[in-house]
Structures are given as structure tokens and as C-alpha cells.
């Protein structure tokens, strides 16, 4: 039998048959190196099996919770910074685009007739839009007074402006408080 077979048996979890066990015993009786390896492995295995579970220092959970809180704040800060950066890039792009359009268009003063014509067309468009909205709302909830539509439109516009303002204020406050905490640390 090859020597590697005995080697396999020495470090195997289960030795298999009684015959294999007997063969290994006979081999160990004549092979000093395998005997030494077997004794060494027995000792190492005993050490491993007797070695207890090691506990962390007291307060592990509290330290983890503190670390989670810190990590969450850092993550929020990164996210708000990224949002502000995206907003900044968007604004800068818009400003650059406007500047490019302005620069590429020959500067000329519009005459009064053209301005009046544009204003009339705009009013006509608004009137058409108002008519469509009124038709849709009337089909849904019945007849609606024109003043209610104008008032509702105003309220919705104000609410949207308020939400955008609140969002920008929140971003500003998050960044400010994170910067303050960072400075304290």
C-alpha cells in the first residue's frame, strides 16, 4: 500500500473499516515519522477542541450601536453632498447653456409690435390651457367656477414652491449639522 494512503487516514475524520484501522496501526508500529505526525495531530486536535469561545469586552452591543449611528450620519452626509453636487452641476450646466445661447444669438432689441404679438399668443395659449383643464375637472366633479380653478392653480403652485424651498432648507441644515459634528470630533 502506498504511504499516502496512511497519510490520508491519519488526518481523516473517520477511518472507515476495522481492516483499515488495523492496517494503519500496523504501519504506525513500524513508521516513526507517521507515529510522530499522529501524536502531533492528536495534541493539536486536543488543543483546538479544548480551546474556548473568546468573548469581546463588555459593552460590545453599545459600541456597535454607536458605530452604526456614526456610519448612518456619514452616509447621510455623503448622500446630501452628492445631491447638492448634482444640483450644482445641473445649475451650472443650465447657466452655461443659457450663456451659450445668449452669446450665439445676435443681440437685437425686439420692437413693440413683436412683443405685443407674443403676449397675445401667450394669452391665447393660456386661455386654451384653462379651457382644457376646466373641461377635464368638470367631467370628473361636475361644473366648477373659473375662479376656483384659478385659485386652486395658485394654491398648487405655492405648495410646490414651498416644498422645493423646504427640501433645499433641509439639505442645507443636514450639511450644516454634519459639518458641525465633524468639527466637534
Amino acid at each position, binding site marked *: 500500500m502506498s504511504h499516502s494512503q496512511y497519510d490520508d487516514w491519519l488526518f481523516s475524520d473517520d477511518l472507515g473499516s476495522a481492516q483499515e484501522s488495523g492496517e494503519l496501526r500496523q504501519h504506525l508500529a513500524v513508521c516513526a515519522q507517521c507515529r510522530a505526525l499522529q501524536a502531533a*495531530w492528536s495534541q493539536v486536535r486536543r488543543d483546538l477542541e479544548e480551546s474556548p469561545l473568546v468573548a469581546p469586552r463588555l459593552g460590545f452591543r453599545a459600541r456597535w450601536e454607536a458605530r452604526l449611528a456614526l456610519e448612518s450620519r456619514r452616509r447621510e452626509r455623503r448622500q446630501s453632498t452628492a445631491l447638492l453636487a448634482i444640483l450644482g452641476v445641473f445649475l451650472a450646466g443650465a447657466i452655461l447653456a443659457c450663456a451659450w445661447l445668449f452669446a450665439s444669438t445676435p443681440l437685437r432689441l425686439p420692437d413693440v409690435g413683436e412683443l405685443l404679438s407674443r403676449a397675445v399668443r401667450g394669452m391665447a395659449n393660456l386661455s386654451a390651457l384653462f379651457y382644457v383643464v376646466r373641461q377635464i375637472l368638470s367631467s370628473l366633479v361636475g361644473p366648477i367656477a373659473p375662479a376656483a380653478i384659478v385659485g386652486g392653480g395658485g394654491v398648487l403652485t405655492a405648495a410646490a414652491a414651498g416644498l422645493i424651498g423646504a427640501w433645499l432648507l433641509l439639505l442645507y441644515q443636514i450639511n450644516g449639522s454634519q459639518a458641525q459634528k465633524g468639527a466637534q470630533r
Partner: protein
Amino acid sequence: MRIDPTQLAQEAQWARQARQGDEQAFARLVEVFQVPVYNLCYRMLSEPGEAEDAAQEAFLKAYRGLHRYDPERRFGSWCLSVAAHECIDRLRRRRQPTLALDALDQEAGFPDASPGPESVAMRREQETRVAILLDRLSPLDRAIITLKYWYDMPLEEIADDLGLTTSAVKSRLHRSRRELAERYLESASPGPKRGELSDVPLPV
């Protein structure tokens, strides 16, 4: 690891709550699994400070990656898998072994089962021997030996946890056992150095 069905059901419930965003439920899981996870990190990294950091990081990664957790699986086993990968990454980043025996003696939280000075000394000696033996194994082999001997995990579960095949785990386990025995022989006697023993032609 324990197999108390009530405890398992409780852990599964906390894991479900944690997956729904309940931070306190996950903190309870941290409380329950802090010892096994820290022990794994300590056995793999051999340094109490880094083991604490790795265990904390492993729990953070587990918390952030709860959407990847399969509820059919035992939560403790999944946590150990996350911790093992964290330790393997750290060991691979190390340029050389950094076993700190002083730190090992002073900071490790070994349970004080036998308070006699002689027993304590023997325990310390045994722990140091284990740490030195494990310190030279490859990160993956160290994880396999730790999961096998401290958590009594079946080879199939170890293979699942480490992303290996069962036969690869079996082969690595065999090789690691031989390596540990050879190292033990080296340290026990001023005889042949590492590698020399396996180079000696064995009698047939």
C-alpha cells in the same frame, strides 16, 4: 452552535423584524451572536483590537446586507459567514503575519473556568500555541479550521459559507491538519524545519 428551537424561532423573528428595518431587533441579534462572531474574528486575526473592529464591521455589513439574507438559513451561520469573509479580506491585505502575543495575553476575554494559577498558565500556553499554529495558515484554511473546530460546522455548511465545493473544503482541511501537525512537531523539537519533514522519503 446551539440548536434550541425556541431560541432559533426567536432569532428568526428578530431577523425578520430587522429585515423590515427594526434596528433594535438587529441589536438584539448582535447581543446574541457577539461571542461567536468575535471569537471567529479573534481566532482568525489573533489580535483582540483588530478582532473587535472586524466583528463590529461584520455586523455592520450584515445589517446593511440584510436584503441578501436567506430567511431559510440560520442567522448565526450567515453572520459567521460574513465575519469570515471580513477576516479573510483583512488577512489578505496584511503583508506579513502580525501575531501580537502580548496583546493576546492581556486583552483576550477567555472564560475563567479553572482559576488556579497553574491551570491559568497552562490555558495561556495552550492558547498561545493554538494562535501560533493558526497564524501561519492561509486565510481560507484558517477560516475552515476555525469553523470546523470552534463551531462544529458540517463540511457542506462551511463550503456554502465560504463559496467553495465540499470536496475543496475536505481537501483543504486535510492539508491544514497535516500542516498544523508538522508545525507542532517543529515547535516541539529542534529537529527538521518546516517543509523538511514532508520532504523525507517515507518508508513503504
